[in-house]
């Protein structure tokens, strides 16, 4: 009997320990974000730091975004054509490709690629810096690591995401155009005209842009916090990098549903 009681208590203990741990992490990540916000103005004093990070976060992610965008657009063109041709309405292929990319696939797939390509790199970088005690070294020299290291990376990720998503959607639309118009014979004018007619600037285009802004914010935040909060061992860096990609992807997919529901409700 006593043995059973002790086991039950142990279950509750581990449950409480874990909940407290995750609440603590949530609190630490919020404080982390507040410190990042406070440090952002100092980035404008040293724009060179931001440019360096825009290169490693944004420019190095372009290639994967270009390739993925082209193929996603081409698949949309192919699949959409095969569905629409059943209803004799293959002329609205442009509508389908445009709306799908601008509203959903552009922001979401770019955010997933961003978390995998740029987010994991940011986490690993910060994790290694913490493991080799570079943050402490900076603090010893009276340099705030938040101003010097973290804020430029945050701003670079936040600014890169909308541009990457726009590049993804634009390339995807041309991919769909290539498959639909050149390979399958949809009318050139109908593709663009139908797209323009049904993609609304405020309802569709701006919704997509807002999504990318939110996703960029969340993905960069998670990546930086996981790196900054990692256990300072080589194993800890590995775990933090995995956690960063998994958490950022799940956050993006979950937020996407919430944002879509909110936006559809107001429209």
């Amino acid at each position, binding site marked *: 009997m006593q043995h059973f009681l002790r086991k039950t208590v142990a279950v509750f203990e581990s449950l409480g320990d874990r909940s407290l741990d995750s609440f603590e992490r949530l609190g630490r990540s919020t404080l982390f974000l507040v410190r990042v916000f406070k440090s952002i103005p100092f980035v404008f004093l040293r724009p060179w730091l931001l*440019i360096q990070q*825009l290169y490693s976060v*944004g420019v190095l992610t372009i290639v994967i975004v270009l390739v993925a965008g082209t193929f996603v657009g081409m698949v949309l063109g192919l699949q959409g054509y095969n569905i629409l041709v059943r209803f004799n309405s293959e002329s609205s292929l442009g509508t389908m490709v445009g709306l799908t990319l601008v509203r959903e696939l552009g922001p979401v797939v770019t955010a997933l690629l961003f978390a995998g390509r740029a987010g994991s790199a940011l986490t690993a970088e910060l994790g290694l810096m913490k493991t080799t005690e570079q943050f402490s070294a900076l603090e010893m020299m009276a340099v705030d690591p938040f101003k010097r290291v973290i804020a430029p990376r945050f701003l670079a990720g936040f600014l890169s995401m*909308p*541009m990457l998503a726009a590049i993804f959607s634009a390339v995807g639309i041309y991919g769909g155009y290539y498959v639909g118009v050149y390979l399958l014979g949809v009318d050139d004018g109908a593709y*663009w005209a139908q797209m323009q*007619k049904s993609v609304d600037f405020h309802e569709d285009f701006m919704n997509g842009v807002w999504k990318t802004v939110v996703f960029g914010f969340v993905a960069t935040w998670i990546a930086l916090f996981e790196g900054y909060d990692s256990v300072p061992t080589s194993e800890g860096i590995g775990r933090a990098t995995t956690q960063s990609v998994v958490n950022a992807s799940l956050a993006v997919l979950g937020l996407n549903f919430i944002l879509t529901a909110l936006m559809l409700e107001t429209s």
Partner: protein
Amino acid sequence: MTRQILEIWVGVFVAAGIAALFMLAMKVSNLSTVSTGDTYEITARFDNIGGLSIRSPVKASGVLVGRVSNIKYDKDYSVAVVTMSIQNRFDSFSIDSRASIYTAGLLGEQYIELVPGIEDNYLEDGSDVVMADSALILENLIGRFISEIISK
């Protein structure tokens, strides 16, 4: 990597991002076709508006002249009151203009067609279109058609 090359690449990235945003805004979405000019509002009362909705087009001879800006239900007269925002440069619709709800294609979106009459006075901000034809409801038509066949 030298500072200059890095700056060039970041410049290319930013330019490509802005160009893509611009392309999506102008070529893909309908921003380029949305008028930014001033508008005046006229209203029309329809027995049935069918699938008309806010932002549905208002056309004259097939040309886009404005959009539906508001739809209300008048419970005293049991009619739908549709407010249309017409661009100021199309200011010569006579007061006996007729507003009809049509469908683009068999199953397409619905729009309002304005046909000017012969009067010399023109519709102004806040004026009411007297002649308004309701939307064609496909089910009503089929129903009438079937009852005609049966009665023969």
